[in-house]
C-alpha cells in the first residue's frame, strides 16, 4: 500500500451503481472498468486529500427494483461519499431519490441523455440534446438533405430529444416528414420503411434502440434507402453499436458524440487512456462514448478536481466546488462544469461509419454548451 499522507483518516469511498448484468451489461461493465482504472490511477498518484480511494461497485441489473436495493447498500451500509452511475434515464430516476434526497449523497450521472435533470446535488457529465444537435443537424442538412424522418423508440429520451432536434431542423430550413414512436422491443419496421421510401426522406434521424435498430436499418437497406442516397443518423452510435449490422447496411451512418476511438490517432491523451484501458481490460467491453464510459471518466476526474479544491469530502463542499470544476484533459478533450447548471461543457465530434469504422468528419470549435437548467 502507498504511504498515505493522511493515513489516519479512513479512505474516501466511491460508489458505482451500474448495469453489470441485464441487457445493457456491456455498457455497465465498461463503466465499472473505467471507474476501476481511474481510481487506480488516482490512488497511484497518492490518493485524494492524502487519503486512499476505495471503490464500491453495485449492480443495477437493468431492474429498477434490484437497483434501489443495491444503491441503498452503497448509501446505508457502505456509506459512500459519492455515487456515480445509472445508464438509462429510468434508472437515474429510480436511484436518484435514494441517493440525493433520502441518502443525502452526491450523485453523478455519466450518460448522454435527454436533458432537463435539474435536481440539486445531481451532476450530469454526458452530452445533452443541445450538444448533440446544434452542430450535427446543420451538418446533416448539408450532407444529407432537408427531409428528415424521426423514427423513435417510445420513451422519454427520444421524445425530448426529438422536440429539440425538430426545432434545430426547422431553424436550419429542414423539414420533418414524420415523427413516429414504436414500442421498445418492436422488431418489424415494414410500415416505417415504406413510409420513409415513399416520402423520399433524405435523413433518417434515428432514436430507435436495440433490439429494434438492427432489423430497422437492415430493412431500410434492403428497401434501397442507402442505394438511393439516403443518410442514416443516430446520436448514440459508437463503437459498440457498429456490430449490430453488417457494415454495408449502415454505410455512411453519422453520429455525434464526445469521443470516438479514431481520435486516438490525433489526440495523445486519448491514445493514452485508451491504451491504459485496453491494457487493464482487454475483453469485449469497449471504452466508448455511447455507453457512458467517457462520461464516467470525465465525471470521476471532475469530482477529483472538486474534492481537491474543496479540501474536504462533505457533500456541500464538494458540490460547491464541483459546480465549476474543470479538467484540462479528458476523453475527446477538456471539460468543464457550467456553474449553476450541474451540466458539463465538452468538445463534440461528428463521425461517419465507413466500412465498419468511424471517420471524423466534423468537430466543434471549442467546448459546446449543454444549455440545460
Amino acid at each position, binding site marked *: 500500500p502507498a504511504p498515505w499522507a493522511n493515513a489516519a483518516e479512513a479512505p474516501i469511498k466511491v460508489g458505482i451503481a451500474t448495469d453489470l448484468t441485464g441487457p445493457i451489461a456491456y455498457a455497465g*461493465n465498461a463503466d465499472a472498468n473505467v471507474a476501476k482504472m481511474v481510481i487506480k490511477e488516482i490512488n497511484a498518484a497518492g490518493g485524494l486529500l492524502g487519503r486512499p480511494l476505495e471503490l464500491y461497485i453495485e449492480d443495477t441489473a437493468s431492474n429498477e427494483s434490484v437497483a434501489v436495493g443495491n444503491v441503498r447498500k452503497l448509501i446505508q451500509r457502505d456509506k459512500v461519499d459519492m455515487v456515480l452511475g445509472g445508464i438509462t434515464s429510468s434508472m437515474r430516476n429510480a436511484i436518484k431519490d435514494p441517493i440525493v434526497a433520502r441518502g443525502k449523497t452526491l450523485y453523478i450521472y455519466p450518460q448522454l441523455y435527454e436533458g432537463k435533470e435539474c435536481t440539486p446535488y445531481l451532476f450530469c457529465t454526458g452530452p445533452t440534446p443541445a450538444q448533440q444537435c446544434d452542430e450535427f443537424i446543420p451538418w446533416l442538412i448539408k450532407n444529407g438533405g432537408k427531409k428528415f424522418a424521426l423514427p423513435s423508440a417510445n420513451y422519454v429520451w427520444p421524445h425530448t430529444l426529438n422536440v429539440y432536434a425538430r426545432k434545430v431542423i426547422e431553424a436550419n430550413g429542414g423539414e420533418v416528414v414524420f415523427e413516429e414512436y414504436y414500442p421498445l422491443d418492436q422488431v418489424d419496421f*415494414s*410500415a416505417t420503411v*415504406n413510409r420513409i421510401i*415513399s416520402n423520399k426522406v433524405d435523413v433518417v434521424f434515428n432514436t430507435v434502440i436495440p433490439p429494434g435498430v438492427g432489423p430497422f436499418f437492415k430493412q431500410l437497406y434492403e428497401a434501397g434507402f442507402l442505394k438511393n442516397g439516403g443518410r442514416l443518423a443516430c446520436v448514440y452510435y459508437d463503437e459498440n453499436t457498429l*456490430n449490430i449490422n453488417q457494415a454495408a447496411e449502415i454505410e455512411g451512418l453519422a453520429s455525434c458524440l464526445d469521443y470516438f476511438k479514431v481520435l486516438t490517432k490525433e489526440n495523445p491523451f486519448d491514445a493514452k487512456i485508451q491504451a491504459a484501458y485496453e491494457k487493464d481490460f482487454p475483453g469485449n467491453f469497449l471504452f466508448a462514448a455511447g455507453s457512458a464510459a467517457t462520461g464516467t471518466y470525465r465525471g470521476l476526474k471532475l469530482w477529483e478536481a472538486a474534492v481537491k479544491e474543496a479540501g474536504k469530502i462533505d457533500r456541500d463542499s464538494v458540490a460547491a466546488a464541483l459546480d465549476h470544476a474543470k479538467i484540462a484533459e479528458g476523453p475527446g478533450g477538456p471539460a468543464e462544469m457550467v456553474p449553476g447548471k450541474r451540466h458539463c461543457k465538452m468538445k463534440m465530434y461528428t463521425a461517419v461509419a465507413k466500412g465498419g469504422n468511424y471517420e471524423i468528419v466534423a468537430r466543434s470549435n471549442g467546448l459546446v454548451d449543454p444549455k440545460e437548467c
Partner: protein
Amino acid sequence: MANAFVAAFEILSFGAIIVLIVLGLGIIASMMGIFNFAQGEFVLLGAYITYLAYAKGLPIWTGMVAAPFVVGGLGFVLEALIIRRFYAAPIVAMLGTYALGLIIRESVRGLIGGFYLTVPEPIGGSIDIGAMHISAWRFTIIVITLLVMAGCYLLLSRTSFGLRMRATLENPSLARASGISTPLMYGATFAFGSALAGLAGALIVPVFSLYADLGLRFLIQGFVAVMVGGVGSFIGPVAGAGVIGTLSAALPWIMAPVVADVLVFVLAIVFIKFRPQGLIAGKGV
C-alpha cells in the same frame, strides 16, 4: 399497386417468422400441456449456434443446419433430466422452464458479452422486381416455414410416430399399457419442439441480429398466439401465430405503432374470451 405488394410481402414474412417461432412452442404446449418458458432460449441457442459457425469462419448454413439438431439434442437431455418430473403439475413445470430459460439466457449473455451481434444471411441482398425490393432472405424464410409446417403436419398426422406421441400425451399410463414407451415419446416430443425452436433461431438471427433477449422477445406473443389458435392441436397454434404475426405487422400501417402494439393483445384476449376454444377447436392433429 407495387406498394401494396411490398406491404403484403412484408406482413406475410413477419407472420411466417412468428409461425416458425410458435411451431415448437405450440407442439410442446398442445401435446404435452406444458407452456415452455424456456422456448425463447431454445430459439436463442439456435441463433447462437449459427453465430458460432459464422464466428469460427464456417459457412453460415452449416450453423443453420446444425442448430436444430444440437438444440433438439439438448431438449432431449433436458426433458430426461428435468422436465420429466413435472408432468403432473404443469404450473410448476412452467416455473421450472422459466428457471431453465433464465440460466440459458444469462449464460449466453455472458458468452456474447451482452452485445448485439450481426450474422449475415446465407442468401443476401434483395430480389428486385421493377422498382420493388424484396428481401431475399425473408423470402427464403417464408418458403422454409411452409415446408416445415407441411412436414410437421405430415409427421403428426400420417405416421405412427404422431399417433404414439398423441396417445402418450393424452393418457400416459394407458399408453404404457398399450406398449408405447412413454419416456421415449416424451423425450422425442420435447426434443422435436426444441429442434423447431432451434431452427427458428437459426433462420431469424440474420434478420434480428444476435442478442441475449432475442427469444424472450417473442415469448409472450407466442403464448398469446397459441391461445388464439387453440391449445390441443397442431394446426391451432400455427393458425394463431399466423394471425398474431400478420396483425402485429399490419396494424402499424394504419395506426400509431404504440397503439397497435397494445391493441393486438387486447383484441387477442377479447377474442379468446368469446371463443375460448380458439380459432381451431382442438380436433385431430
